[in-house]
């Protein structure tokens, strides 16, 4: 699933924002959060970036770590002044959200 990307007079390069997001790995699966389909929405307004994302399982033990890694990764992008990461469970993550590459990496599909 490709994240919904909305921009409004972005101070940061949207490509760089998406690239930074893609570099955040799930340390259990060794797959990036974008490829896993965990990121639902990315909104860039000026220097503010808001991310709405989920995790594969509610209560995932790496919950805090992954959200913090997303936050820190985006804060390093030039032009980003503030980051808001919102973890949601609705809609819940489903395997359909994974990219084809992620499916192949897991030996699925």
């Amino acid at each position, binding site marked *: 699933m490709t994240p919904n990307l909305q921009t409004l007079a972005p101070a940061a390069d949207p490509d760089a924002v998406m690239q930074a997001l893609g570099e955040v*790995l799930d340390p259990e699966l060794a797959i*990036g959060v974008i490829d896993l389909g965990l990121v639902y929405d990315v909104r860039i307004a000026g220097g503010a970036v808001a991310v709405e994302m989920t995790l594969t399982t509610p209560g995932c033990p790496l919950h805090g*770590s992954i959200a913090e890694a997303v936050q820190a990764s985006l804060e390093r992008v030039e032009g980003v002044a503030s980051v808001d990461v919102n973890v949601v469970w609705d809609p819940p993550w489903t395997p359909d959200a994974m990219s084809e590459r992620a499916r192949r990496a897991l030996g699925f599909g």
Partner: protein
Amino acid sequence: MTAPLTGADAPAPHAPLASLLAASAALAAGAVALLLHPGVLALAVPTPAFLALTHTVTLAYVGLAFAGTLQQLPPVLLVTRLAVPWLGRAALAALALGTAGVVAGFALGYQPLALAGGGALVTAALWATLVQGLLTYAHASRADAAARALLAATGYLALTVTLGFLLAAAPHAPALAALIGYPVQLHLTIGLFGAFLLGIAGAGQRLLAMFVLAKGASPVRIRALTWLVHGAVLSEVLHAFAGLPTAGLASALLFAAGGLQLWEVAALLRVRLRRKLEPSVTRYLWAHAFLMPAAALALAGRQAPAGTALLLGFVVLSVSGMQVKIASFLSWQARYAGRAAAGGGRAPLLRDMLVPGLESVTTAALAAGAALATAAVALHAQPLAAAAAALLALGAWAQLLQTAHIVFGRHVAIAARGAASRPARTEVPARRRDGPLPEEP
């Protein structure tokens, strides 16, 4: 939407990690003791040495690993923060100390002071763990069948150690002995099935689903399994204290519960997304191969070998497999979560934290050791017992080395570097799409 847990809400991983490490060390020490005295296994009669070894496995290994896991798992299952964290840490310390007292009390030939002191500490620790679990459950906005099964298992663990404590005290207190009799079978049923089977089923359902990315599992089986175990325990209680002929009913309910556990695991595997299973998950699955032989032996009236297959085969292998996964999660959180936030590619992945090859040794040695131990108990064969002890020691030490490496070792981000170094891994809308991600090893 559920308010997300933040990193600050996550329970501190150090106490459960210490608990898992201590549990592994206890199993390794117990395996060496068995290697030195294999006749204990061949005879399988409740001598002090046999009871010391049995409690090394049940209390020091499984009990410590279970209690340590309970400092981490309820927040995962209930999606809430752990209630009264200091209570859990105090309980783990008391459990470790008390378990040492109980094992020493048996090993030294029923030393009353060590048994009384150790038993009291263990009992208090597990009731404290239950109180913590209940408080956590009470504050949760959601609770599924797996969480309720785990909570019930915690209650049964507290109950079985209380009963064991009373059993140990009964010879010294005639009034107590007259009141409770000598319900050893009830102690075993509550411990092996109420605490261990239910705990493995409850924790395993969620953890296995998480580790193999299985979606769509039904809660019906775990709910039914829980009620079957409740029914079996009630039947045993009625048999032990009211003299009703319900022991057979208890066995039938437990066979059904074991069958449901097999069904549940098979169902999760069928719907999994992660086709390649990790070695520690494979070990958890191998554990279930011991359920049918244990049931067959029990049906044949061979209770001692059935119990051996259930404890050393199903319980130890299950706990051992899950323990490695949980320890690597905890250690990663403690050591590398900050580094991952600082720059994703530099932190090792969970799989980088394992010594390659040790998992296979642990699985093969523990599984073969459990099978041989079952045969040794069934046939009262000393050479088989010696071979079983050697294999169990090999498996237990391989597991201890792995756990110590996970907790203290230097880990290199091999897999992470490979994945992160690929350019443009993201699916930037309609712009870049590159080569495949590395397949799981």
